[in-house]
């Protein structure tokens, strides 16, 4: 009897979550589709975003993401490899790095925005620019990416490490050809989390990449991210609801497309090394 109630409760939880998700999603899709047209993707915004489209905003968003990922992925993978493969488990430095990362992962993004503004925009003199914004995003996604990859590497069986060493392989070969491919699911998960967080970010970008909605001419120009655009339309522009929903629809689609792309890229890259069991 208790067993029955338990499984019902679990069912209800699952249903509630799915229902909430569907509700949000259908709201975005229905309301967004009403305002959406293909032209919306290729036009510049007019009348504070009430009219026109989001072309420059889409371009800025992609640039921000590109900068953030280009910086964060190699760096993050490096730190993760160091933490799981090279740092000894009782090294003070490694442990404090880990704790710092955990704290940083929980810091609200507005704090990253303030830091990015002080450091990249003012101290390094990058001003309000895509570069400042992208680098700030990189800082923001790094902790989660590192921790996900690190955990993934740590769960890779030690038998393979010992096996590789016993065959006289260097550690770099073992990492590159065996451990990283074996940690692939975690790396993909980290990547997806990172893309999602970076694409949906507003607070960290307000003070770093700014909210100029013109087409950026270079990485040192200010640019408005899609999420900032939605925020602005919803909060500051009366009559901007339609455009806000249409932009939200684009944002959701963009994240789905990017995630699928990231997954298949990583998969195909690793598949050449690894035969998945």
């Amino acid at each position, binding site marked *: 009897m208790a067993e029955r109630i338990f499984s019902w409760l679990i069912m209800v939880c699952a249903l509630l979550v799915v229902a909430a998700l569907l509700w949000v999603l259908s709201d975005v899709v229905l309301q967004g589709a009403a305002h959406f047209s293909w032209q919306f993707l290729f036009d510049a915004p007019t009348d504070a975003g009430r009219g026109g489209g989001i072309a420059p905003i889409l371009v800025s968003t992609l640039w921000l993401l590109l900068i953030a990922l280009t910086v964060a992925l190699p760096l993050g993978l490096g730190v993760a490899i160091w933490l799981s493969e090279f740092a*000894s*488990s*009782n090294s003070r430095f490694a442990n404090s790095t880990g704790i710092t990362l955990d704290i940083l992962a929980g810091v609200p993004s507005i704090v990253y925005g303030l830091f990015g503004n002080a450091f990249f925009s003012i101290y390094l003199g990058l001003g309000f620019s895509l570069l400042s914004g992208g680098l700030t995003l990189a800082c923001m996604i790094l902790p989660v990416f590192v921790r996900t990859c690190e955990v993934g590497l740590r769960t890779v*069986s030690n*038998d*393979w490490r*010992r*096996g*590789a*060493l*016993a*065959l*006289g*392989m*260097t550690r770099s*070969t073992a990492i590159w*050809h*065996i451990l990283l*491919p*074996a940690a692939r699911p975690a790396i993909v998960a980290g990547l997806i989390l990172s893309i999602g967080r970076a694409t949906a970010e507003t607070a960290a970008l307000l003070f770093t990449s700014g909210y100029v909605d013109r087409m950026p001419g270079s990485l040192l120009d200010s640019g408005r991210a899609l999420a900032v655009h939605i925020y602005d339309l919803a909060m500051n522009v009366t009559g901007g609801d339609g455009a806000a929903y249409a932009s939200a629809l684009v944002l959701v689609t963009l994240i789905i497309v990017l995630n699928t792309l990231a997954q298949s890229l990583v998969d195909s890259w690793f598949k050449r*090394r*690894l*035969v*998945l*069991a």
Partner: protein
Amino acid sequence: MNRLKERSYTLGEIEQGKPCCVPQPHLQIQDLTVGYGAKTVLSQVSLDIYQGCITALIGPSGCGKTSFLSSLNRLSDHHADAHVSGKILFDGQDLLHDPVDTLKLRRRIGMIFQKPNPFPLSIWRNLELPLKEHGVRDRNVRHHKIEQALKDVGLWDEVSDRLHSSAMALSGGQQQRLCIARALVLEPEILLMDEPCSALDPIASAVVEELILRLRGRYTVVIVTHNLAQARRVANYAGFFWMTERVGQLVEFGQCQHLFEAPTHALTAAYISGARG
């Protein structure tokens, strides 16, 4: 301690008709002591490993057999708090004190583990990766060596039609033989086997045992096993480890037949008759 040393050698004449067992030391181990942190787990072990022969090491759990094996190919280097002292003479060098290229050393002294640990790659890649790592550039040479190694372990007929599918899909016994092939493909001189059959079912275990017997003469084999009958069947020499006050020691070493039929030490006699095993 002195009493123990006097007894270390109880070698008699080599059995006639087994030309593989020329009693020429391939590895000479002198006063080998292994510890982890402040704890000594193996103390003052001295014995010779004879070329082309199979040497079986027996003894209760935790008496340091694995620690002993891992010192021989310097895998112990990779345990952060392990310390190894004494001498291991191999090919005119002291492996513990002379500058040794451990990567090259491990090509010459291969190791097989208790749990089969094929890499999560294809069967082919499992053998190709170590070859490439050791600079075998020529594709045809690699091809030839891989085929030969798979034939040596009797896997070729079983897997030649699925060389490029995952090694993880093989049965436990096949995986273990693949691991042996992976070691053999590097043409080692010595094979260290740490309970190679204990994770296998009786039939697979018998197949691997037969394979080990076929290695006699071509390779020098050191095998740790808890299966006394197996030790008796395959080995030319046998060593018996025992723990006194939680420190492992070599109690008796000699020709396998002598050790099992006429042990000189009461502990050995008790252990092999099952009284205290």
